[in-house]
């Protein structure tokens, strides 16, 4: 017996999964560059969110056409991947369609896979048309050039090819066709190969089989470099997503401590500073390490669909702000920091760059109305607003770099308890006017 294919298969599987695992470790390391945040609350609500939003796709269907097509691709990919199990066993052991022994049920399964494969193929073509022919606006925004644009199309091409290979593999498997059990779609492809000799057809089948599994392993490894990571990260991201009312911004604890000290009449203002080597906490965020790890997970989860940006009032009225770009910039900078750490033996070496200004401009940050439309629109619970807010906090509290009119407003609040220069003693004058 010839064991070479089995050995080659085992090697391919090992490399494919091994390289992916290595990158996943890097991904987790990068996410952990963010500071800690307590997400131990509301566990049952979090599980429910994951079940509804990620598994149930509840937010995807808010836009029915894209939502419906996406569900086909999502369900298709999950179910067709059951077939991968058979392929792996066949590949390692040297069997051929090891599950076919289970009888009629096998036909039901493969038949379902074939139908889904066709539906996925059609859906992906419609996606491609929406993106490249219809040119839906959100796919053609400023940040959707070069790599992000190609990435989106590569994903669609890979999915088309994988589905085709699956169907061709079944169509050229004459033994399977003769069983006439589950070949609901592939039987119509088989005649295309009728002029070929049996051995040629067999070679086509083997080639399709190998390309299919190698393609899947390749696609798996493509994820780390692509926006397509959402197929994995959507699940943890919806779990860790915000469970508080959308309007609630966190109260910075470091500030609370200082404010309490200022307001405490028992504190001795002349007391010597306690000796401490601790670096005082930085207020807000100017770089990715200042964000929390959920915000960094958000950045890796973003699949650049642009629903956030298309709902953003600032973006709709021609401002530079695009919530999607906030997420893409955060990921780009995070990956840059990650590469920096990789090349410097595990330690980040100052590179004179940061998320603020080098990626996200102040003009973008100040255009936000904090309306939460982006947060509401995201189908996988990403919160671009929280990053915008943390960066505003840095600008105001660390740099005193608010727009002048806002400084005036804040001075008024500070001096007379209202955003305008009205005396607090006049607050009830309306009663007698």
């Amino acid at each position, binding site marked *: 017996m010839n064991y070479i294919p089995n050995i080659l298969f085992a090697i391919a599987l090992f490399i494919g999964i091994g390289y992916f695992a290595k990158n996943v470790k890097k991904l987790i390391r990068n996410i952990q560059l963010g500071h800690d945040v307590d997400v131990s609350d509301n566990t049952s609500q979090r599980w429910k969110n994951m079940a509804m939003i990620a598994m149930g796709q509840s937010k995807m269907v808010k836009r029915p056409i894209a939502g419906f097509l996406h569900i086909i691709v999502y369900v298709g990919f999950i179910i067709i991947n059951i077939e991968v199990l058979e392929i792996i066993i066949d590949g390692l052991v040297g069997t051929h369609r090891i599950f076919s022994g289970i009888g009629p049920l096998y036909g039901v399964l493969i038949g379902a896979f074939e139908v889904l494969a066709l539906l996925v193929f059609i859906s992906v073509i419609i996606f491609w048309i929406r993106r490249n022919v219809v040119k839906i606006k959100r796919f053609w925004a400023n940040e959707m050039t070069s790599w992000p644009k190609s990435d989106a199309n590569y994903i669609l091409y890979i999915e088309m090819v994988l589905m085709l290979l699956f169907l061709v593999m079944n169509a050229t498997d004459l033994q399977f066709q003769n069983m006439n059990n589950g070949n609901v779609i592939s039987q119509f492809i088989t005649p295309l190969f009728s002029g070929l000799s049996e051995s040629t057809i067999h070679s086509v089948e083997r080639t399709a089989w190998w390309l299919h599994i190698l393609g899947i392993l390749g696609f798996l490894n493509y994820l780390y470099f692509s926006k397509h990571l959402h197929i994995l990260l959507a699940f943890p991201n919806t779990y860790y997503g915000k469970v*508080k*009312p*959308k*309007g*609630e*911004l966190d*109260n910075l604890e470091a*500030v*609370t401590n*200082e*404010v*309490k000290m*200022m*307001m405490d009449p028992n504190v001795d203002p002349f007391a010597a500073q306690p000796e401490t080597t601790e670096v005082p906490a930085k*207020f*807000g965020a100017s770089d990715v390490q200042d964000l929390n790890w959920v915000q960094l997970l958000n950045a890796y989860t973003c699949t650049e669909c642009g629903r956030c940006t298309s*709902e953003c*009032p*600032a973006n*709709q*009225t*021609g*401002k*530079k*702000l695009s919530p999607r770009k906030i997420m893409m910039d955060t990921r780009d900078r995070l990956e840059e920091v990650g590469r920096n750490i990789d090349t410097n033996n595990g330690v980040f070496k100052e590179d004179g760059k940061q998320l603020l200004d080098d990626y996200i401009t102040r*003009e973008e940050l*100040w*255009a936000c*109305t*904090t*309306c*939460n*439309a982006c*947060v*509401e*629109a995201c189908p996988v619970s990403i919160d671009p607003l929280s990053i915008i*807010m943390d960066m*505003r*906090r*840095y600008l*105001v*509290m660390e740099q005193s770099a*608010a*727009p002048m*009119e*806002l400084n005036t*407003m*804040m001075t008024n*609040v*500070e001096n007379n*308890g*209202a*955003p305008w220069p*009205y005396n607090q003693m*006049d*607050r*009830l004058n*309306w*009663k007698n*006017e």
Partner: protein
Amino acid sequence: MSSTLKVPTMAEFMAEGKQPEVLFWVGCMGSFDDRAKKVTKAFVRLLNRANVEFAVLGTEESCTGDPAKRAGNEFLFQMQAVTNIEVLNAYEIKKIVTACPHCFNTIKNEYPGLGGNYQVMHHTQFLKSLLDEGRLTIEGGQFKGKRITFHDPCYLGRANDVYEAPRDLIRKLDAELVEMKSCKSRGLCCGAGGAQMFKDAEPGTKEINVARTEQAIDVKPQIIAAGCPFCNTMMTDGVKAKDKESEIQVMDIAELIANAQDL
């Protein structure tokens, strides 16, 4: 206009050793902005009509800190919050109603973490509860059959999932409630939130309030109903910018109800 307004302060209640049923948090807009003051008074007339024992803080009220927080000044926000919480807790306030969704959101969601725990209601929710309890009746009056569209304030709607109370009140006016293209959870912002009210917008192709007003004009309303003093200003300016002042009025829901009963 009927009799003078009864607006007791917390200090007065305290002096009499009484607790009001609810504290009316007026807010900076409601206290100082000429347009918003009319809403404040309309709401007070309704409270008076329903015999609600309410009080205001008056000169002891101060900005909740919302615009400072959204501008990024957490220090100033927390200073304001802690000061306000001290006053509220000293008066042992349990329940607060406000006509400003920004005050509503801040006190409801961001004060608890700093020691301020109250039941907080938006004035539309409060009016709805008065209606449900039979303490207030709503008639359509001059608004019967009028086409009214409701502009969802971000800090009431998306931020806190309150969509129905204001709409229920409009329906009670026997008015024709029409929805804009973007409404409820997909409502388009008026452009004032996040401290934008206090600064010029960044360069763009259009003002946000104009974009939102265009959405309103598309459904041909006679009245744009607001539930937020900032939205009210932005939509009023939008209507002016589109030269529709003679056809479309911007009114707060409290004003609609009070005016319908000639209060």
